[in-house]
């Protein structure tokens, strides 16, 4: 059974200035006594998550809400294993597929088909899985012969279609989504919704960060309200979303 458990997770993100990362700075600091005071101007540390403890079980559909910079994307990255927590523990079981920024991580000079392979491998698909799904991906994105052209020739809409088609073809046990709804033109949007719904059905756990409360109400059964890197509220959708709406309009 798939699950994700965060126990007292704290994450400090170091923000390096151009100076902060240079070796010159570091060497210059060696001779100085007041290293901390000097050091502070180079590396700024942002506490992105502080003491977050939650457990998501198989079958749950979790929505993340909160204002910008509340830590929604960061917590998704922690759950995906991209960021290791500074303190605390992350326990996880099941194949995790993060769809964080679907348009990144494609190679401009490679053709559509080559990108299907690249992105598929990056998302952890096996060779046989890729072969089996290539046709289906090609059909879904409706790019036809364009798939043989390098994707730098694509319009931004075509690019997103391709990225979306590849990313959503992966079989995930735990699916992490970050605001992926704005996909392509109206007709494609409709198809994309259906495909996402199908993807949700196949996955055991879905965690999605979204700003649309209506969408959250429709798809999620549990909601995690993040505030300043911490958990503000965690519980059934209706209760939390109502509280959040009341807070926002207040």
């Amino acid at each position, binding site marked *: 059974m798939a699950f994700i458990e965060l126990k007292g997770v704290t994450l400090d993100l170091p923000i390096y200035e151009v100076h902060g990362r240079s070796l010159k700075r570091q060497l210059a600091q060696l001779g100085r006594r007041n290293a901390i005071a000097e050091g502070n101007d180079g590396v700024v540390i942002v506490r992105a998550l502080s003491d977050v403890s939650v457990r998501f079980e198989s079958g749950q559909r979790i929505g993340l809400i909160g204002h910008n910079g509340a830590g929604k994307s960061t917590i998704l990255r922690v759950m995906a294993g991209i960021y290791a927590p500074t303190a605390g523990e992350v326990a996880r079981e099941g194949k995790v597929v993060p769809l964080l920024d679907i348009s990144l991580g494609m190679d401009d*000079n490679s053709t559509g088909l080559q990108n299907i392979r690249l992105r598929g491998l990056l998302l*952890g698909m096996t060779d046989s899985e890729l072969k089996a799904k290539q046709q289906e991906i090609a059909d879904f994105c409706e790019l036809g012969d364009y798939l043989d052209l390098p994707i730098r020739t694509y319009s931004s809409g075509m690019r997103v279609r391709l990225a979306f088609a590849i990313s959503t073809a992966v079989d995930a046990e735990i699916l992490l989504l970050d605001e992926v709804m704005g996909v392509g033109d109206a007709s494609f949007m409709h198809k994309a919704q259906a495909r996402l719904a199908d993807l949700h059905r196949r996955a055991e756990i879905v965690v999605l960060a979204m700003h649309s409360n209506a969408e959250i109400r429709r798809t999620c059964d549990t909601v995690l309200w993040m505030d300043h890197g911490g958990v503000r509220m965690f519980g059934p959708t209706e209760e939390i979303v109502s509280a959040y709406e009341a807070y926002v309009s207040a």
Partner: protein
Amino acid sequence: MLKFAVTDLKQSMASWRLWMLLGWIEIRQRYARSRLGPFWLTISMGVVIASIGVVYGTLFGQKMSDYLPYLAASLVSWGMFASTVQEGSTAYISNAAYIRQVATAKLIYVLQVPWRNLIILAHNFVIILLLLAIFGVPSWATLPLFIPGLVILTLNATWMAMLTGLFSARFRDLPQIIASLVQVAFYVTPIMYRPEALTRFSFLVRLNPLTYLLDVVRQPLLGQVPSMQTYVLTIGMAIVGWLLALTVTSRYLKRISYWI
């Protein structure tokens, strides 16, 4: 102590398809839309060897039939080594977009570098074959030793790439420092000249590990058997280097996604 890096390495090896693809993409990108594609590598290397060969061969008073194969074997192996170490320094930096999106094993980004440079070496190898065909193969018996030699060279270049990649992700002026170090190493290592030729400062050659690293690859091509000392040194270097690189990688593996 080595645990994290070894696990990562195993996972990376298992996804060989991914790093082989990433390596190819780089090459494809560099030569996109050119008619000859990666064979431009062969051509430019050929031009370099021909011009250095003629000028320095004359300056050093060398016999062309000896000097050209020597120079070609040296430059081609050096090219593989130097670019692996140098491109290793941007291994994580230039793949930041991937690293921030998916939690793959990290060493795939390092492994693609030696792989790419082996492909380039294969293209450049045409020149060596050509020169051997023109001037004759010095000894068929020693040729097979080229393969273990290349393995040793690649293993050594890879651990260095692991280290330069990791530290460059944290300290951004390191790629420049490494580029100039590699440039200096090119002059103090017997590549254009023969090891025996440096009579006054022979310690530069004797104490330079890169001399042995090149010897282990090029000597078999030139009809010589690398000495026992050469093998012991280079293999020892590979073992110690890998242990060091894996230890350091283990220590900082989790920080990579913060640094890039």
